[in-house]
């Protein structure tokens, strides 16, 4: 376990005052590794908040180059990086904020070939992928390897988040046991919506690593930012779940 340096003590001074976090929690953040995939509207802000909070290592998995249509929400992508790899833009922006951050950039989305390895390198996974195929892979590996996974999702002005702790909670395949038919690759989105759920997701990851508070175990938080309705739904494990069931 690496201790905090004087610079880190100065940087995190204000959050060290958070009850039940303190220097011990901050050291746990420093020594932790979080996988964030992808680094789009959700994942960009998750990664930025985790970098700001002092998480030691981020694994960022995101394929492709920066496009104009990324720039309304993917806050680690910048105009000057159009046409160049997204993970490079993400790495550059995160290092500007926190040069101490260790970043493992993977210019690929989560797939059958890399999921086991990337999940295996992380202490916590934040699932921020736009496709269910990627989400189900991360979920399967997280359950298999007994790693907590924070699942963040949004559509239009709606947001959802739950925290999956293998052995304690429903998993993503309990929640969605069959392939969702109505989901489309392109979805309506404001960056402020994806950014909101991303901040909640980052906070869930911070709590899991530092070890304080109550996470969204077996609870699905839903928000409709059109009306500002917020709900907590109690969700259930399915005994017959192909991923976590008996």
């Amino acid at each position: 376990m690496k201790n905090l340096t004087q610079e880190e003590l100065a940087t995190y001074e204000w959050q060290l005052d958070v009850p039940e976090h303190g220097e011990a929690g901050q050291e746990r953040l420093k020594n932790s590794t979080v996988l964030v995939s992808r680094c789009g509207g959700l994942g960009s802000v998750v990664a930025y908040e985790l970098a700001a909070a002092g998480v030691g290592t981020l694994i960022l998995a995101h394929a492709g180059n920066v496009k104009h249509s990324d720039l309304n929400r993917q806050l680690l992508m910048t105009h000057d990086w159009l046409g160049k790899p997204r993970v490079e833009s993400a790495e550059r922006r995160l290092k500007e904020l926190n040069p101490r951050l260790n970043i493992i950039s993977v210019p690929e989305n989560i797939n059958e070939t890399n999921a086991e390895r990337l999940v295996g390198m992380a202490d916590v996974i934040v699932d921020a992928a736009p496709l269910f195929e990627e989400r189900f892979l991360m979920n399967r590996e997280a359950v298999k390897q007994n790693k907590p996974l924070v699942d963040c999702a949004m559509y239009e002005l709606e947001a959802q988040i739950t925290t999956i702790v293998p052995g304690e909670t429903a998993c993503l395949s309990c929640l969605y046991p069959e392939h969702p038919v109505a989901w489309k690759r392109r979805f309506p989105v404001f960056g402020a919506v994806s950014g909101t759920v991303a901040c909640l997701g980052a906070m869930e990851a911070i709590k899991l690593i530092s070890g304080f508070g109550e996470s969204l175990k077996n609870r699905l938080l839903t928000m409709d930012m059109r009306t500002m309705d917020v709900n907590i739904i109690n969700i259930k494990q399915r005994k017959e779940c192909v991923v976590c069931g008996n």
Partner: protein
Amino acid sequence: MITIKLRFTAQLKDQVGLATDTVLVNETDTLQDLLSHLVEKYGNDFGTILFDENENYRHSNLIVINQIQENYEDDITLVDGMEVTLMSPISGG
């Protein structure tokens, strides 16, 4: 007859064109009866999100009653004023 309050999210909301609605059902209706009734009320595009071509329920659509997730097969007694939320799954990033 009893009144059921309905809430819809994501693609189901898009198909209904409303986030909330109310519907009158018979006191003896089951949850399954309610959903069949809603398919008649809101049409085929709504129905194909909820049910496959063999009329099996697509379980990835969440059914939430009074903040608790329920299964389509559950034996639920509908009561006057009950709020039923139907949520199609989302994964936007």
